Structures are given as C-alpha cells and as structure tokens.
C-alpha cells in the first residue's frame, strides 16, 4: 500500500500493528508453555504463564488507547478505518486467548497420576493446532492476507474434532476409573479451553479478512 501523505499517520499505524503482533506472540507462547507445564507437571512454569498474562492485559489497554486516539485525531477512512477497528477488536480477542492459556496453566497442580493418563497424550497435538492457528492468523494480519485468514478459519474444524475425540476419551476414562474423575474433569476443561482458543482465532481471522477486503468471509458459517 502507498504511504500516507502525512508520515506520522503511517508511524502510528505501524506502532498499532506492532502492539498487536506482540500480543499475538505472547498469546502463542502462553498456550505452548501452559501445555508444556501441564504435561510435565511443571508448576513453576505454569505460574510464570499466569504471571505473564498481565503483560497481555497491559498491551490490550495500550491498543485500546492508541486506537481511540487514532480515531479521534486522524479521522481514518476506508482501509485505514477498517484496520483500526479490526485492531481494536483483535486486541480484545487475543487478550481472551491469553486468559484461556492462563486458565490451563492454573490447572497444572490439580492433575494427579500423570503417567496413567492416556488422554494427556492427545492434548499437546490439539494445543499445537490451536497455537498454530493463533500464530498464522497474526501472520495473516501482518500481511493483510485474506487467503491465509480463510485457511485459519477452515482449520478450526480440526480443533473441534480433537475436542470431540478428547471428550469421548475422557468420559470413558472417568467411567472406567472413577478414582481419576477429578483429574479427568480438569483435563476436560483444558480441552474446552483449547477449543475456545480455536474459536477465538477464527474470530480474529474474520476480522483480518474484514480489514483486508472490507467484507467477512461469506461462504463460511459464522
């Protein structure tokens, strides 16, 4: 895209995009480390993830303030307007993704008998897909790439399939091993959180598509 005649406007938008990218990086890392902590039972790592979530909250506030300032001072139009509105909404959603990762990290200490838990081995693969969705949707945002955004949306079906499979798996595990119900329920929440992260990445993808071309992807069920 051609530069603005007013250079400071470009600098502001670049800064806004930088903040969103930083948020995305933190959210992705939070998902990965929360799962790592969960699988290995590393309570300390889990606490780090929880503590670092504050940074995401701060960045979200920063994006909000910056977007409001840009709307007030620059009166953006067309693509610029869509971009700033999208940034405002994306920041809120990425912050939620961070909350889900934090919630996973909080459960690290509540899982007992890790070695006997077969469903535990499914979670990293599911987490990887969800984290990848977050990673790719922010790449799509940075590149204003509606095609990649659409790919991310399609990938959500994979996360949903993982969730269904884990759900069945955990339920039968609970039936067969009533003593593990408490831990299995914890894992169910973890799976649920990852499924929600996939949904939120899908929402971000829709906003990326909107910012890039001015419409939501129509042929995909919202």
């Amino acid at each position: 895209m051609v530069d603005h005649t007013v250079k400071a406007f470009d600098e502001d938008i670049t800064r806004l995009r930088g903040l969103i990218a930083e948020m995305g990086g933190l959210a992705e890392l939070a998902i990965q480390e929360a799962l790592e902590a969960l699988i290995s039972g590393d309570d300390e790592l889990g606490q780090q993830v929880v503590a670092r979530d504050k940074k995401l909250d701060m960045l979200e506030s920063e994006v909000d303030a910056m977007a409001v300032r840009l709307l007030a001072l620059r009166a953006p139009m067309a693509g610029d307007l869509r971009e700033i509105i999208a940034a405002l909404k994306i920041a809120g959603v990425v912050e939620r993704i961070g909350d889900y990762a934090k919630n996973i990290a909080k459960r690290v200490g509540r899982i007992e008998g890790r070695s006997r838990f077969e469903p535990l081995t499914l979670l990293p693969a599911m987490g990887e897909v969800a984290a990848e969705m977050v990673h790719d949707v922010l790449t799509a945002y940075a590149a204003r790439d509606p095609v990649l955004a659409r790919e991310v949306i399609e990938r959500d079906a994979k996360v949903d399939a993982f969730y269904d499979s884990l759900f069945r798996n955990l339920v039968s595990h609970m039936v067969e091993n009533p003593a593990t119900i408490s831990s299995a329920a914890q894992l169910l929440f973890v799976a649920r959180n990852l499924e929600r992260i996939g949904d939120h990445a899908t929402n971000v993808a829709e906003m990326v598509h909107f910012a890039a071309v001015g419409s939501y992807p129509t042929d995909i069920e919202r």
Partner: protein
Amino acid sequence: MVTNPISNAEPKMRARDVSVYYGTKKAIDAVSIDIPTEYVTAFIGPSGCGKSTFLRTLNRMNDTIASARVEGRIELDGEDIYESGMDVVQLRARVGMVFQKPNPFPKSIYENVAYGPRIHGFAEGKADLDAVVERSLRRAGLWEEVKDRLEDSGTALSGGQQQRLCIARAIAVEPEVILMDEPCSALDPIATAKIEELIDELRGRYAIVIVTHSMQQAARVSQRTAFFHLGHMVEYGETSQIFTTPRETRTQDYITGRYG
C-alpha cells in the same frame, strides 16, 4: 463508464457522457450520473479534478465562460437543459446555486430574499411576498435571528448568517435542485454545523448536490458520494460504502490521504 448503481427511483437529473472543454483542454471526460431527489449527493476529489466544473454544468453556469464547451446530455426531469429552447434564467431558478463565499446583494435582508420571487412572478402583492420571505428565511433557519431587522443590509450579517441568507434566496424561488459549491469553506465550525443541519433538513424537499473539499463533511451530510479525479468520475456509490469499502484503489488512496 460508471453509472449509478444504487437508485431505483426516477432521477431528478441525469447526465450522460458529459464532457466539458475549456478551449482545447478537456476538463471533464464522459461523466454519466443520476442525481436522485430527496438525497444529498456529494462530489469529492482533489483540486482540479473537475468536480466544480461538472457541478456548474448542471445549471449551465459554464455558459458564462466563453471558452467552455459542453458535450453530452444533461436532463432535468427528462428534459435536455442544453437544448436551444431552454430558458436559462428559468433553469437557474429550478436548479439554484449557493457559492463558496456568501454573496448577498448589497441590499436589505428582505430584498435579498424577495428579489427572486418578485422577478420570477412567484408572489402577488406585498402580503404574498412577505409570506415567501418569511417561509424562505424559516426554511433556511435564519428567521428567528433576523425577523426584527429585515431592513438591515444583508452584508452586515455574520459569514454563516450570510450563507444561510444565500440559501434562503435560492429556495425563495421554489427550486427543485440546489447546487452548493463548497458552501462552508469560508465558515467557522459552528456556522458549518448549522449549514450542515440545514442541508439535512432541506434534503427531504430538494435534490441537493454539494461539492466539498472536506471528506468529513461529505461523510456527514451526503447519502451518495461521487469521487472525481483528473476529469473522470472514478466511483459513485452510497456514502457509507465509499468511505468504508471503496471499490477503486484511487478512491481508497484519496480518502485515506495517500493521494500523490
């Protein structure tokens, strides 16, 4: 090239393949557009894009420029306004105009408004004329401010009041279309807001076309926006569409401040 994709209603004015030349220089190239009534249509574009030139073809103001030549067809209610039998004075009453700088006559406020109806024979007798003057000043949102000083000179009013006086003068002769050429560029924000509010009130009654350099103003007051560039009408559509999802890259670049 680009025609009107939006209005189903019979347009008040219709331009087809209109080109305007100043001598050998082509200022407008084959513009086709439908101007609906009861809507505000805004023309935007950089200086020299031809938006004011095109506006002036709509009531033959370009006739006063010796070197100007208009090709193509412009209709008012289906009637060709450039045909030889057209009474230009009558045309300019039906298609009124408000200019950038308020230009009241150096006469009383009353006379400024009464002049048109009198020469066009719209009012019989003093009482009739008084009623036309009051109604026009009311519609222009100026009555309450000037009703006790109608004999004061129009030029003694503030800039914003003068511009509303000019609008009252234009609507006194019962026009069907009002053309406004940057009507607020010489006014402060409060006077501008009053004119914009007035435009919004008037649009239910007339077809209004406004040329403005302020994109914010076009966004605020119009329902249709046409973007002109280098004599071409690049894009014409609903104002909300033009300012959120313009179809043309040139429109996008201009309204987001990336022009040249």
